[in-house]
């Protein structure tokens, strides 16, 4: 176990929120076809409110802090927020489309000793990338900004969300990342929209195409192990938990709402109404999330994949139950290993039902009303 994993496990065991993802705005200068956000401003936290929350997060033991959005640079005070975070000695990561980063911004980011800047690129072809972002010349501008960041010696990760409209371009983006000296990550996850609209799920690449990704050594390291049939779960596996959401990680929205994860829209409190640590320590919802062990899962506890599945409790929650299966992850487990999941078997399916058209009503992220 690496030192970082050991520390993560220690925080998990102690219930310390070692990592927080904070969206500082949902506003954006791009209109990506797959985006799950409502880009209107429904009352973002002010600079002073965010600084106060950051003070509380430092006090609570948060070390890894990710700023994201929306587009973070839509906030004119973004550098002021980051400067405050760095004064508090957080390890800061920024997720951005980078369109608004020029030489001056790149220099300031370097001066603030930001750990990593993660930037979304959907295709190496401008006509594909720009059609996804709906912002003309966005690829050209993003690539130019990455060059500014790299000239400053900053670490850049290119995040390539894979969907139907760009599914053949991942090798091109990977090559572009190498040319730019950036790391590359590929993610085939498309999330339902905040208002419950599932139409964006039609952009998910069909499950039948997943094996080509999972079995591609250029995309998946330790591929043999990754695609190996699941081992029978041990007693320890059944005592285990799904992920760090709500245990040592949480998400804070631009409106101050606290959720177990950015992909887990279970409202647990609002930092405009309560102290962060009161929410973290006392929220009944977070306590419930923390109580769920693999053996408590309604379907997955009897699944052969239970110890190796990437089951996301947030996606399961959006499907109807945080103790239930996440069909998108069942699909991944099946196409990764070829072994049917318990969720498929109970439905008598020989292959997973498509997750690209889930019609079930989804629980929605809604800002919690704050008294004036």
């Amino acid at each position, binding site marked *: 176990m690496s*030192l*970082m994993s050991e*520390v993560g496990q*220690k*925080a998990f065991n*102690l219930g*310390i929120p*070692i990592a927080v993802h904070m969206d500082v705005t949902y506003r954006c200068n791009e209109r990506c076809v797959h985006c799950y956000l409502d880009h209107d401003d429904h009352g973002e936290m002010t600079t002073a409110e965010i600084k106060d929350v950051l003070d509380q997060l*430092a006090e609570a*033991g*948060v*070390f890894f802090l990710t700023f994201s959005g929306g587009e973070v640079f839509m906030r004119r005070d973004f550098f002021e927020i980051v400067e405050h975070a*760095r*004064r*508090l*000695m*957080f*390890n*800061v990561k920024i997720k951005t489309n980078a369109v608004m980063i020029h030489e001056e911004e790149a220099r300031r980011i370097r001066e603030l*000793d*930001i*750990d990593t800047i993660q930037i979304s690129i959907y295709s190496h072809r401008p006509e594909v990338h720009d059609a996804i972002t709906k912002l003309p010349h966005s690829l050209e501008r993003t690539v130019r900004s990455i060059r500014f960041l790299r000239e400053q010696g900053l*670490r850049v990760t290119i995040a390539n969300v894979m969907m139907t409209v760009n599914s053949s371009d991942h090798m091109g983006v990977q090559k572009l990342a190498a040319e730019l000296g950036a790391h590359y990550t590929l993610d085939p996850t498309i999330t339902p929209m905040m208002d419950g609209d599932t139409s964006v799920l039609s952009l998910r690449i069909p499950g039948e195409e997943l094996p080509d990704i999972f079995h591609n050594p250029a995309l998946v390291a330790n591929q043999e192990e990754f695609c190996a049939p699941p081992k029978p779960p041990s007693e320890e596996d059944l005592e285990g938990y799904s992920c760090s959401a709500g245990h040592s990680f949480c998400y804070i929205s631009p409106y101050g709402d606290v959720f177990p994860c950015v992909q887990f829209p279970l409202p647990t409190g609002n930092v405009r109404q309560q102290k962060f640590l009161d929410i973290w320590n006392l929220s009944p919802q977070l306590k419930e999330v923390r109580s769920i062990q693999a053996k408590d899962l309604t379907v997955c506890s009897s699944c052969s994949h239970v110890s190796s599945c990437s089951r996301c409790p947030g996606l399961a929650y959006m499907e109807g139950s945080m103790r239930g299966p996440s069909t998108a992850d069942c699909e991944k487990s099946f196409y990764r290993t070829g072994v049917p999941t318990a969720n498929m078997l109970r439905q008598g399916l020989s292959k997973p039902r498509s997750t690209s058209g889930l019609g079930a009503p989804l629980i929605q992220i809604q800002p919690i009303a704050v008294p004036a």
Partner: protein
Amino acid sequence: MPENCIYIARSSAIAARALAGEMMVMNSADSTFFTLNEVATAIFQAADGRTPLREIVRDRICEQFDVDPEQAQADAEQFVTELSGHGVLLVSNQPLASEAPR
């Protein structure tokens, strides 16, 4: 460098947070990640750029941890050399402006 004149300050380039009494430190320049034990954490937290290392060892280490002063000083100097090599601590024989808050 005379040992009674060593001043140490935390670099502003690092990220740091205490986890159950032990400090996690990451240098953003190369993503080197450290955890410091209780004694090292006490030295790190006292590294304000103004207090000589010998005073830190005497007041923070020997008193709190019941260790031999000479051994503690030698260990502290080794620790400071190691962390300064990774850019986590700044070292000088003059008082330093503290770059990072405690």
